[in-house]
């Protein structure tokens, strides 16, 4: 059995906690407009910072999903801290589903 008391977790975290909080843009994706993201995936390919991630919402045993069917996959903006606000994703999105908002400085 695993002896939990023995587990040493590496201490150093690369994020400098004194630097927090860090500012980042809000990126929202309208899932009513973006219904087949894994079939479109334009934002995934356009973003130089790999901000977006796309995943199958319902993993089911013995069943393969069809990415062309609406609502099976979902795309979300995960690594917002890396966004350059280059707006490439907004320009590329055929459904105008992406909105990027910056907080006032």
């Amino acid at each position: 059995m695993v002896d939990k008391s023995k587990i040493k977790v590496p201490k150093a975290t690369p994020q400098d906690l004194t630097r927090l909080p860090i500012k980042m843009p809000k990126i929202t994706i309208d899932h009513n407009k973006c219904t087949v993201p894994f079939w479109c995936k334009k934002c995934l390919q356009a973003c130089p910072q790999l901000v977006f991630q796309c995943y199958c919402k319902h993993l089911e045993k013995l069943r393969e999903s069809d990415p062309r069917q609406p609502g099976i996959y979902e795309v979300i903006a995960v690594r917002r801290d890396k966004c350059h606000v280059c707006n490439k994703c907004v320009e590329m999105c055929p459904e105008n589903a992406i909105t990027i908002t910056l907080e006032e400085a």
Partner: protein
Amino acid sequence: MCHYCEMWGDGTIWYLNPRNYARHMYTLPKEAKPGATKAVGEADPAGYINLERAMVDALERGPEEYEKAMKFARDMVDMTQGSVGGWMGQVVPLRDAERMAEISNPLGLIACICRKAMLGIEERCPENMTCMGLGVGMLKWERWPERYKGGVHWLTIEETKQWLRDLDTKGFVHSLMMFGPRFIGGICNCDYPACDALTMRLDHGFNMLKGHHVAMVDYDLCNGCGICVQRCQFGALKMNVTLDKANIDQMRCFGCGLCETACPRKAISLKERIKIPSLQEVW
């Protein structure tokens, strides 16, 4: 020693200990706690993604919130034995990956789930078949067709080694993955930032351990060609312009060995981490 070696090494490097590949290790936690161990296909990608999103969101809210999110993430891994969020693993150099292929059975090549999520690369795309599945967990693959749309290419030991060498030549970092508390279920071949495991480690210090080696440059042999510099995914290698030699930041080095396999003059060697006083506790 890294803490996995302390717990599961039985006196050797833990991932070279055949016990950690045994069928017994795969089924044991499942009997004790139903659902504890998940097959490669069962591990839910939404879990990883939401965990990473929670960490990034916490960065925006300040240090206390960030530490809270970190604790939550670690507890989650503990509870679900690594099948939801930030999996457990360690970077391995090519030579150790080849030795792992000799220990485990069966061996199969499957599609990378991270590149699917980050870049939208389809499973059926042959360039995306870079994930090595090891051991009995792979035999469950047909139950999870969604994860294995690209199928499984079963490989012999020699074929596996050849694949690993080819992927190494391309510049992919090898790292092992665990499914369940001590069952080694795969060798991932990927790069930063497409690989979620490497990204979680480099950006948030989360779970993936550094390898058992650290790279060192021999200045007598290095001619400053710079080939090695483009291989490092960890920002540890750069050119020392004054001397016109490669220079390695040993605190950043993960011991992936990609610089070693690329150097045409064999100027880079891998040293054992535990023999370097300042790095013994750096994982």
